[in-house]
């Protein structure tokens, strides 16, 4: 997996455009317009195309035509997921249906913990409904990304018990995480991207070597926090399926620094869950950068 620069493509303008379309024309026209946007990305987003094509062609072993079609369908689904997210955050959530697979596990996390997710489906959709747990809920995200959408988040999340912990160079986010866990709160974070210079751990993922950030797993072991792997995938036009695994506690034997082999069981559990989900929903893999170590040689 190559490093990520900590910035997500698009930003506030994109959100505002989606809101405008949704509020003015509704969900169906927004989806219709999306076909053209997805096609534009399919034609002109060369670098992301290359990486996501590698996933379908090499990792999943699709034929050339099926892989190319999957790239287009992947972009279209990503767009739909983004539109759905904005719709739900803007109060149009009643247009969607959900089923909850493992919600009881989250309700049972009374001492708080980490909700580890990935760029599959839309965990923001799940996140928007996590207030059902009645717990204070935090999202860990890179500061640059947070600054871009902060005012928007403040606007739409003011009634939700949701807070952002920005990852900053001054390392204060570590203390915020510590405080949140001590206060028995939930913290959601992704474990399938890392920025340059971060510590990583190598693991076999979909049959190939890939690197994952150590951070989420290190935090879990160091602070002894329960970990649930949480995902929400889109199953039909207006239906989402939410998955949460039973919380696990991973123990570190070492007093201070945790060696890589002690992190591995947690990483492998995460990867195993990820693989299972990708097998079911291959079009919802939304990582558009070099992910597998051998990608540069083949891609």
């Amino acid at each position, binding site marked *: 997996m190559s490093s990520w620069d900590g910035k997500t493509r698009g930003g506030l303008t994109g959100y505002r455009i989606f809101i405008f379309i949704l509020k003015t024309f509704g969900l169906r026209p927004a989806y219709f317009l999306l076909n053209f946007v997805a096609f534009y990305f399919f034609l002109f987003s060369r670098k992301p195309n290359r990486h996501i094509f590698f996933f379908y062609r090499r990792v999943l072993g699709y034929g050339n035509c099926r892989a190319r079609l999957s790239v287009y369908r992947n972009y279209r689904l990503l767009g739909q997921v983004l539109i759905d997210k904005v719709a739900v955050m803007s109060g149009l959530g009643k247009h969607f249906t959900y089923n909850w697979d493992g919600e009881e596990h989250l309700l049972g996390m009374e001492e708080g913990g980490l909700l580890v997710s990935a760029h599959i489906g839309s965990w923001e959709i799940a996140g928007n409904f996590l207030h059902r747990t009645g717990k204070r809920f935090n999202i860990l995200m890179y500061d640059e990304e947070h600054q871009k959408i902060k005012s928007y988040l403040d606007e739409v999340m003011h009634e939700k018990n949701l807070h952002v912990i920005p990852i900053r160079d001054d390392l204060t986010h*570590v203390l915020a995480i510590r405080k949140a866990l001590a206060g028995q709160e939930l913290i959601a974070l992704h474990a399938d991207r890392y920025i340059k*210079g971060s510590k990583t751990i190598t693991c076999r993922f979909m049959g190939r070597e890939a690197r994952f950030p150590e951070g989420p797993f290190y935090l879990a072991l160091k602070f002894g926090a329960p970990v649930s792997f949480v995902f929400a995938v889109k199953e039909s036009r207006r239906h989402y399926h939410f998955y949460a695994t039973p919380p696990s506690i991973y123990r570190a034997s070492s007093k201070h*620094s945790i060696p890589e082999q002690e992190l591995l069981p947690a990483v492998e559990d995460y990867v195993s869950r990820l693989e299972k989900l990708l097998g079911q929903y291959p079009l919802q893999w939304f990582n558009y950068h070099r992910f597998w170590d051998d990608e540069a040689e083949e891609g």
Partner: protein
Amino acid sequence: MDKTEVVDIINGFLTEEFEIEENLIHPDATWSDLGIDSLDFVDIVVIIEKEFGFKLKGEDMVNVRTLGQFHDLIFQRQLSKQ
């Protein structure tokens, strides 16, 4: 505990636990100079709690840029605890 003891404890675990060379440890050194990243800082937070018996707060760290400022912070927190 006086300031020298606080400094010795902090510098001690930086050299022992993080294997930072002693010549790099000086009051003007930043976390980056010392090669401390956020995962190392997770360890430091836990060590501070164990060694000094209080929890660091995010607001404490806002103006801390150097090791010297970190020494000052821990010393002041140690004093206020007493």
